[in-house]
């Protein structure tokens, strides 16, 4: 006597996941109000960046810095901001750490549901609702600033740009989720999150295009700082998609960068899974 459906398999998992997504969407819609203002606020730091670069270009006779004209710089910051709307995960790692600390993570140990899949559904819902609201301020700013952009890229570049955005979402998700799961070992992850944010800010291209690190030697012959950063995951969460749109990376370099990004997504997804497995084992042994 039971109400269980036997079998099910991947199809049933998909259905469960879709329901999770739908329910997370409904939940997010309860809080739709605070998004609109928050989004506009995001553009404020950019205004100072634009002023700063305007001053830089006024003070020098050079027409470009590391291959970026003043217009390129403005377009770059706007595109990096757009990428960060995909790759940044506000509250993800601290939320995971909180659920571990206050014990609400238990629910996912007792119920036949996968926590990482659930978090992913919740985050996609979060993003979809965010985009639905943020499209207005984003669209407004992009239209107002259209004069700074070079002509739009061709269809192939455009599709690679979209792909790199989707990958940047996944990369950001798995990096921050893994970071949050460190909460199984240390109760308070906020200082770790802070350190991560700092590195992220410097090396993702959020602060300046990574091309500007090309002139900085690392001590290794023929290797600049930009060459090193290329192999790290950070620049794929802000710089890379923007550089694709602006045509800064082409040909074999583009293929290689895309492969590195995809590889990091796989590595971080595995890291997240492993952290969950080991973390719950530790939780079961010491905490609970």
């Amino acid at each position: 006597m039971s109400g269980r459906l036997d079998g099910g398999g991947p199809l049933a998992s998909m259905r469960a996941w879709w329901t999770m997504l739908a329910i997370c969407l409904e939940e997010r819609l309860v809080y739709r109000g605070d998004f609109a203002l928050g989004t506009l606020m995001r553009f404020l730091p950019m205004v100072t960046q634009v002023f700063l670069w305007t001053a830089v270009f006024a003070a020098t006779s050079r027409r470009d810095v590391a291959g970026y004209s003043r217009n390129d710089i403005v377009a770059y910051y706007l595109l990096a901001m757009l990428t960060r709307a995909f790759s940044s995960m506000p509250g993800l790692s601290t939320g995971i750490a909180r659920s571990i600390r206050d014990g609400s993570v238990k629910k996912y140990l007792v119920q036949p549901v996968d926590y990482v899949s659930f978090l992913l559904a919740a985050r996609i819902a979060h993003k979809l609702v965010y985009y639905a609201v943020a499209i207005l301020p984003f669209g407004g700013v992009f239209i107002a600033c259209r004069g700074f952009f070079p002509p739009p890229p061709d269809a192939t570049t455009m599709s690679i740009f979209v792909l790199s955005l989707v990958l940047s979402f996944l990369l950001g998700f798995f990096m921050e989720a893994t970071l949050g799961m460190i909460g199984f070992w240390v109760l308070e992850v906020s200082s770790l999150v802070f350190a991560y944010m700092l590195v992220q800010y410097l090396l993702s291209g959020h602060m300046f295009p990574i091309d500007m690190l090309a002139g900085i030697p690392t001590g290794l012959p023929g290797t600049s700082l930009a060459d090193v950063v290329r192999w790290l995951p950070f620049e794929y969460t802000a710089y890379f998609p923007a550089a694709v749109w602006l045509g800064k990376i082409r040909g074999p370099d583009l293929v290689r960068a895309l492969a590195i990004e995809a590889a990091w997504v796989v590595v971080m997804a595995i890291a997240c899974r492993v952290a969950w497995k080991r973390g719950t084992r530790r939780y079961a042994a010491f905490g609970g």
Partner: protein
Amino acid sequence: MHNSGPSSVAAPVIEVAGLAKEYRVYDKPEGLWASVRGLLHRTSRVVEALRGVNLTVGRGEFVALLGPNGAGKTTFLKLLSGIITPSRGTARVLGHVPWERADDFRRRFALVMGQRNQLWWDLPAAESFRLHKEIYRLDAARFERTRDELVDLLGVKKLVLQPVRELSLGERMKLELVAALLHEPEVLFLDEPTIGLDVVAQHTIHEFLRHVQAERRTTVILTTHYMKDVAALCERVVVITHGDIVHDGPLAEIVDRFTTHKIVTLDLDDPSATARIERCGFPCEVRGPRVVLRIDRQRIADVLPEILRSDGVRDVSVEDVPLEEIVAELFRSGAPERRAVVETAR
């Protein structure tokens, strides 16, 4: 591989042997300086939350797990539901080792904690139910039938479409129970399900649990501090103190074993009669015209007619010692000196 086939009527649903759980707790001495030193050197102790417990529960049993705060009740339920792993010992629930957390096992039991919310806070409970339908992979028609039945039994039809955060504690608890029982679990663990609820809500939940349990032959383990829960629901009582099971048997047996006397309450016409009653030598308490006597159970048949013959007795009632008192006695009888802690330093 473990046996996951349907358990036969004879096979026990829960089998626990030598189950022990130790926790390491860190002492945090008072004061700022001590806290700074604590960064380098912390002293810790090992606390034995559960000290080698044996228990066998058959299908359809309704077991009360009683014990004072910190006795190990919740630790025991966490072990049985696979949230934590034991330090020693074995457990099988429905043929599964709980802490392996096989999906097949997790679809067949439910855990309800009175102080923890499983429902989505900002959404109506109906949405949480819908999610349960998918994660427990329930057949649509069956899900609807079960849901409607449970909702009817608890009288919460009007509440399922209201955001959970707007509901009262009692209403929320009822919906938690519906959510937990949607997948018709064969084993149900209830950790203080009636905590903080008013008498009416408690009664509704008793009726509900009794009905559902009888209908489905669910195996239930319930922890509680309310003896009303026990008296209304459980035939079997397991008492844990200091991590050990100190009693396991039918409720009636406990009452029998620990009730050495009866409570006799007399209402007197004449307050002067109290002196006469007091002289009869039983411990007694005078509250105005009312006298409460504790009389040895063996002697009650002899003593009572004698008392009733005396003048001025208008009314009499004979009651058992309240269950609370019996259980408090049982809790005290658990050996506290065995709660050894191992001092260690790190």
